Structure formats: C-alpha cells, structure tokens
C-alpha cells in the first residue's frame, strides 16, 4: 500500500486529484460540499487517470509475489 501511495504522489496524481477537488469545491461553494459527494465525483476521475506505468509496476509485483508464493 505504501508503494502505491508513493508512486501516486510521485507521478503527480495526488496533486491532480487535489486540484480536481478544489475545482469542484470552487464550483459548488465551500459550504455545499460534503466529503461523500467529493468522493462520488472524484473517484471515477481518479481511477481513470492513474498512469499506466504505475498500473504496470503493480501488476508485475503482484504476479511475482504469486509466483514466488506458489513455489
């Protein structure tokens, strides 16, 4: 989990999400937004914008783990 976290921060995904959240809050006004609503709106954007390199690296690691655990 720490790896995923680090990678996502590194590649700027977190900052992009932060900016997206800010935009949403700016649009809705500070008082009108709830955490749940933010999550609902941002989650699809976030899932879509994870860079392929991060996905690939994690898949690789999982595969290696499974292979080594099976032996």
């Amino acid at each position, binding site marked *: 989990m*720490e790896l995923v*976290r680090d990678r996502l*921060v590194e590649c700027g995904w*977190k900052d992009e999400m*932060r*900016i997206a959240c*800010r935009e949403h809050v700016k649009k809705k006004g500070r008082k009108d937004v*709830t*955490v*749940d609503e933010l*999550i609902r709106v941002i989650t699809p954007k976030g899932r879509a914008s994870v860079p392929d390199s991060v996905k690939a690296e994690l898949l690789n690691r999982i595969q290696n783990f499974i292979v080594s655990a099976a032996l």
Partner: protein
Amino acid sequence: MSARISFLKNPDPCNHLSDYKLRYGTDGYKSFNNLFRCFNDGRIKIKLQGIDIPRCSYCSVYQKRLYICLICRSISCSSHILLHTQLNKGHDIAIDVERSELYCCACIDQVYDSEFDEVVVSKQLIGLGMSVKSGADVVAVRSNKKRRLDSQLIIGSKFLVSPRDRREKWTFPLGLRGLNNLGSTCFMNAVLQALVHAPPLRNFWLSGQHNRDLCPRRTMGLLCLPCDLDVIFSAMFSGDRTPYSPAHLLYSWWQHSTNLATYEQQDSHEFFISLLDRIHENEGKSKCLYQDHEECQCITHKAFSGLLRSDVTCTTCGSTSTTYDPFIDISLTLDSVNGFSPADCRKNRYSGGPSVNATMPTLSGCLDFFTRSEKLGPDQKLNCQSCGEKRESSKQMSIRRLPLLLCLHVKRFEHSLTRKTSRKIDSYLQYPFRLNMSPYLSSSIIGKRFGNRIFAFDGEGEYDSSSSSSPSAEFEIFAVVTHSGMLESGHYVTYLRLKGLWYRCDDAWINEVEEEVVRGCECYMLFYAQERVIQKAHKELSYQVISMADAFPFADC
C-alpha cells in the same frame, strides 16, 4: 486581506458536534487515545484490539471508508453510517478509521474540532518523538494534517514553538526565500530574486525542462548555468525558509566571466545580461533552429525577446530605411529627461520631442525619449538611397514586437570616456505599476509620424490608426531592482510583487512592505510582465499558498 486570514480560523461546529461536546466534553476523544496508531509518514489510524481488518457492522465490507462511532465504537461504512445514526439516537459523531478525522453522520460531512485535533496531534508527537529533530519538523507535523489550529493553542509539549511567528512565514507565498550575500554579491541576489519569480522562467525550471540530472553538458562535466539555476529553483521552492547561498551559480558565473570574478561589486544589469546570454548559449544550441535571435526558442528569448524597429529618415527627401533588431531589455537614459537645459528644451519643441516635465522624471518620459525622433549629428551623415549621396538624417526607435517579460534598465551609471570619470545619477524616477506600451509600438509611433493613414508599413500587417491598447500591450510590474548608495559602494535590493503584495528582498532578509515604499524607491531595473502572464501566475499561486502543508516533507493529508 480578510480572505487570507479566514482560512486560518476554525470552521464552526455543526449542531450535532456542539451537542456532543456539551454532553461528553473531551472525554470521548481521550478514550480513543490508546487506539491511535501512528505511522512514519505522519498518518494516524485507529486500530481496534483484536481486529486486523475493520469491517462495517452492517454489511461487512472493508474496502470503503469506515467510521467508528464515538459513543458505541461500532464500525460502519459510508453507506450505513446514516442507518447507525437513525437506529441509535445521539450517535452522531464518528471518527474516520483510516485518517482519524471527525465525521458527523447526521450532516453527512466532515467536521472539525480543535480539541480533538489536540488529542490526535499530541499522540502523533509522542509517536514520532524519536525522529523529531527540530522545532521546524514538529511544526511541520501539525501543519501537515491541515488542522486549523487556534493561534493561542499550545499543546503541552516543550518542542512546540509558538505558532504565531511561524505562521507569518507560512503565509509568505511559496518560493520566497532570502539569499545570502557571499561577498558583495547583492547584485546577483537582486537579479536572481527577480528571475526566480518571473512566471515563465519559474514554470520552465520547476516543470523540469532543464533538469540537472538529464543535462547532457553536465554529464560531460561541462559547466552549465541553467543546471545551477535548476538547483536554485529547487531550493527556493523547497519550502525551506532559511536563507540560501547561491554559491554554485556564483562559481559557474565566475568561470564564464573570469574578468568579473572578484569580490567587488558588479553591475546588476551586466550580470542580468550575461546570465541570460549563458542560458541562451546552453539552451539555444539544442533548440535554436535559426541562427538569429528572432526565431530562437530558448527560454531566455521566449521570455524576454522583443523586436525593435529603427527608422532612419533622410531629412532632405524623406525616404526611410528600416531595420529590425531583437532585444532582451531596453536601456533608458535618465539624465536627459531630468536635466534639460533651456537650449535642449527649444530643440525638442521644434522636433516634436517629448514634453519636458522639469520637475519629475517619469518612466513614460524616458520611454518617450527613447522613441523620439532624434536628429543625427552632421558627422553621422548616412548614404541616402534616393538622393544618391550622404545626407543628414533622423533616427527613430519603436517597438515592433513586445516580449512576454519586459525589462527596463534605467541608465544610472554614467561613464564618461572623455572625462574618464563615472558618476551615478541618483534622481528619483516615477514609474507606474501598470504600463501600457501601445504608444511606444511601431504602429503608434509610425502612425503619429504620418498621421492617420490606413496602410501597412513594410509588412507591419495589423496597423490600425484607431487602435486602442491591444491586450498584449498591457503590462504589470512584478519586480523592481533598486540601487542605493554610491557608484562603487552601493547596495542592490529587489522588491517583488506576488499576489498583489510587495515583498522587500534584501539579501537574506525578506519582509512584506507597503506599496508606497516601492513607489518611492530608486529604481534601477524594472521588470514588467504581460497582463495575461500575471493573471495566470495569480491562479497558479493561489493553489500554492493554501497548500503550504505540502511544502513540508510529510506528504499525506
């Protein structure tokens, strides 16, 4: 101003939180003390005994956001938390298990309470106690979690520094940092401050377009000034507020300009030009498609390069020859505007020169003077094409194309070759914060000469006799380099304008100053940027000021 301060204030608690506090006070918070678990990167979670993976008590899901009720300690996911509140009256407040943040189930939103934050943060301090090195780190932990703490709050730990003085530095825009004087290097510090905060340059280096780890010159062991600047940009925007020593850049610059490698005071403007030149040399080689500067795509030229038009007119027949020269800054003569003798006044009136304001030299006066129609002396007769022989002529400069960043250099140091002396012109020059450059554009200057004619001049293209200021002719000031003192032993100070506020950068000392102070200073170099550049930078900085927390190493929220 008030907008800035309000984000530091606590938001008001919702009714449910107030009710909870009335009934239970802070005992509920403290009872969770044993359940907090700290991690190295500053995160703090709730860990229940015996339960490794917390699950929702209604649906057993563990992947969603889970909340633990303050009163009954049951765990619910975001879908079922409302159900929990409905089934159990008064069980409104819960804590986010992953993040240790308060949540009001009835309001379906996060809420904030400084006393809860106190409890959490003091647990974090104890947890991180071993790795805390200095007050700065400790303060970083607090700010990191974006807890909006009351300024009077002092958690009972001796590590904490009173937040008030820290906060002053916090509210400084990102990238503002003092530069140590390494021995009469204020001339360098002054220019560096202005360049570091020039939006196009800042964006270029911070976005890694000249990365010192990828630079081919540096890997070959060659000197590379843009790489040294990369180091400086990283340091300036690192969030560290202690003054920085640009020793590498100084050393590299010495190696390039060995004749200037002394500890004597150098000319700030000279340093500016030579630095930009070196950047062009390093950058331009790879990006320059053409030899001439006009098409160069290096950052120096993209930011500072404009085009000057020079018209030389034969006074006899009126035919004009036009040349275009690129420029990266404009040097303005101060003396002539200031000290007109009566004879000069008469001369100017006849040739339609600028109206003389004998009392106060202004920047527009200098620019008028720069774009005046100047009669070339009898010893400067030029060969006129149509007359066929050398004739007296007049010359007029105008600006064909404005750069993104306009550097105006006020010639205060007069070196007289005949008298072999130099002197400094101390007179005050009045300058505006907003500058409209359209009267100095070629279209306006040429237009004035010929009156209202609607036709293009030598491929000018868009000439409009009634042209009001086009958007790209409006400039806003962003930096002023001032020089005070004598010629040999003076001192350079830079005033920076960030988000509408002025900051005085005197080597290592930075503080906010009033507008009047800047208006009244003795300007030496004025840095203007096109309006749209400033507006764009405003937007970018507004993200950065709020996220001061990210400037500190612990990067989670």
